[in-house]
């Protein structure tokens, strides 16, 4: 306490600063550059620079900065990398897409960068206030991005629903935060955690605080029953933004959950483990069952992302309890990273399907994709198999870690439900496969993939199969992340 910031404090947030800087730069550039694609490339440069700075931070010992407001540890590092990847891919996907939607504006890229910055602070936050502000930065930017297609009623509607429910839920979260603060007298995670560790756990006010916090967090990760905004928002949002939300926003929410569960309310484990377990089961099952009935690919993937969030929760459940399962902990970053690549690959194909006058969102629009563009169909197949968790794809390795963690921590029933859900999920992924490979093309317009989509597909493919076949390095990275070095 007492000291103003020091230079090394600034050092550790260079990646974020770069993003903020580029975000503002883009706003100015937007005024002078008529070709909006250029702004997109600029944004990518910003992300690249940020990534480079982040790379420089690799291996650094975990340090608290700003008097304990943030920490730069391996977990934060891992997730920041993930956010940057997701942001970069989103930008790549957006450049052609926004043109097709005729809403190509420089603000879009700034908002992506700001949102990413917000996420990066969320990943680093060790203070309720930092966390909250980071969260809101991300959330508000995302509300805007979802409604970015101003002329599109569905986009408006999605944005408004997302905003209303998001604000509502962050008020609930905030209520919980306020009680936590009142209880412990501090906003620093570590101090709150220490305080809770010594306080009697059955204090009703504390319990209400935990519930409010958990409810708010559940909303962010779209766990049942706080999931319902997801399909609507995902469907209405610009497709590339949907991709961004489904991976980056979700991952940020998970890292937030990570910090909150393990650093703040860790001592309340006996209370939240059952809650998480039930939510996990409901989330997986409901997401999968609802996805079966969908005819819109975006909506289907929205439900699928709900169920995937359910799977990730297994990692939190298994990462605790009696024996501290490193496997469960490691499964969370691993799964999210794999999901990021795979899912963005899927979204890339969906984005590519959106052309002038063709919405490309219905499953029927996938019909005969194989005949129209075999490469993208085959890649899509690989991504879908990865989502379904079938080897030798990365998705399998990730799912394996989750299931193994569940078994290791003796959550056998949960494990069984999870694997059955994994099997059910194959059913709706296969529907897309059927459309692509076994149905005849309903339309014959050629597909021409933009450079962004190509790069995305290539990256996602290399990652999905590469990690599937040789997952060692990525697993090590995930373990490194959870070691909080």
């Amino acid at each position, binding site marked *: 306490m007492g000291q103003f910031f020091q230079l090394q404090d600034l050092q550790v947030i260079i990646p974020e600063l770069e993003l903020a800087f580029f975000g503002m730069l883009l706003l100015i550039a937007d005024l002078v550059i008529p070709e909006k694609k250029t702004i997109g490339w600029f944004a990518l440069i910003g992300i690249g620079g940020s990534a480079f700075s982040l790379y420089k931070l690799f291996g650094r010992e975990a340090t608290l900065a700003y008097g304990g407001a943030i920490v730069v540890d391996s977990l934060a590092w891992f997730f920041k990398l993930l956010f940057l990847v997701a942001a970069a891919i989103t930008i790549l996907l957006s450049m052609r897409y926004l043109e097709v939607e005729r809403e190509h504006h420089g603000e879009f890229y700034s908002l992506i960068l700001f949102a990413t910055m917000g996420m990066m602070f969320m990943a680093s936050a060790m203070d309720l206030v930092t966390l909250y502000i980071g969260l809101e930065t991300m959330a508000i930017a995302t509300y805007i991005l979802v409604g970015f297609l101003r002329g599109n*009623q569905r986009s408006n509607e999605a944005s408004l629903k997302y905003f*209303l429910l998001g*604000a509502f839920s962050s008020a609930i979260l905030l209520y919980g935060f306020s009680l936590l603060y*009142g209880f412990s007298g501090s906003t620093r995670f570590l101090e709150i955690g220490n305080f809770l560790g010594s306080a009697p756990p059955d204090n009703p006010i504390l319990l209400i605080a935990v519930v409010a916090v958990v409810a708010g967090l559940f909303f962010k990760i779209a766990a049942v029953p706080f999931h319902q905004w997801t399909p609507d928002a995902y469907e209405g949002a610009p497709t590339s933004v949907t991709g961004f939300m489904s991976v980056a926003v979700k991952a940020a929410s998970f890292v937030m959950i990570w910090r909150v569960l393990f650093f703040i309310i860790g001592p309340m484990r006996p209370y939240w483990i059952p809650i998480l377990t039930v939510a996990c089961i409901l989330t997986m099952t409901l997401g999968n069952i609802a996805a079966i009935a969908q005819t819109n690919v975006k909506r289907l993937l929205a439900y699928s992302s709900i169920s995937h969030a359910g799977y990730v929760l297994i990692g939190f459940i298994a990462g605790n309890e009696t024996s501290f399962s490193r496997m469960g902990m490691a499964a969370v970053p691993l799964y999210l990273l794999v999901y990021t690549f795979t899912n963005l690959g899927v979204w890339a194909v969906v984005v590519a399907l959106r052309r002038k006058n063709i919405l490309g969102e219905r499953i029927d629009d996938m019909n005969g994709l194989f005949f129209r563009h075999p490469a993208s169909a085959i890649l899509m197949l690989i991504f879908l198999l990865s989502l379904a968790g079938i080897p030798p794809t990365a998705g399998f390795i990730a799912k394996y870690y989750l299931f193994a963690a569940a078994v290791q921590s003796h959550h056998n029933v949960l494990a069984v439900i999870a694997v059955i859900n994994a099997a059910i999920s194959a059913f709706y992924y296969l529907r897309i496969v059927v459309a692509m490979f076994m149905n005849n093309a309903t339309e014959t317009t050629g597909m021409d993939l933009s450079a962004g989509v190509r790069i995305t597909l290539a990256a996602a493919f290399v990652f999905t199969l590469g990690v599937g076949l040789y997952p060692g390095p990525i697993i090590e990275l995930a373990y490194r992340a959870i070691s909080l070095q």
Partner: protein
Amino acid sequence: MVATHHYLILAAALFTIGVIGVLTRRNIMVILMSIELMMNAVNINLIAFSDRLHQVTGQVFAIFVITVAAAEAAVGLGIVIAMFKNKETMNVNELDLMKW
């Protein structure tokens, strides 16, 4: 000196009234106001604790909350206006293009 739990209960009441507003009113503007009510309730909590603990952290927190509330209001209203241009309604129930 007023015991802290008085404030907490007042905050809870305001919070719940806000929730009721969100759940029942069909006018989007009113819903936005209800959310503001909820955030005010949080602020009461924060300030009450701040007072009890003889520190200003809660007050600082409240400042951030107010900041966020302002930002949210601005964005929310922006969204409302964008929507209003496409569909002249303030009724949240008419937002039903996407369901199931």
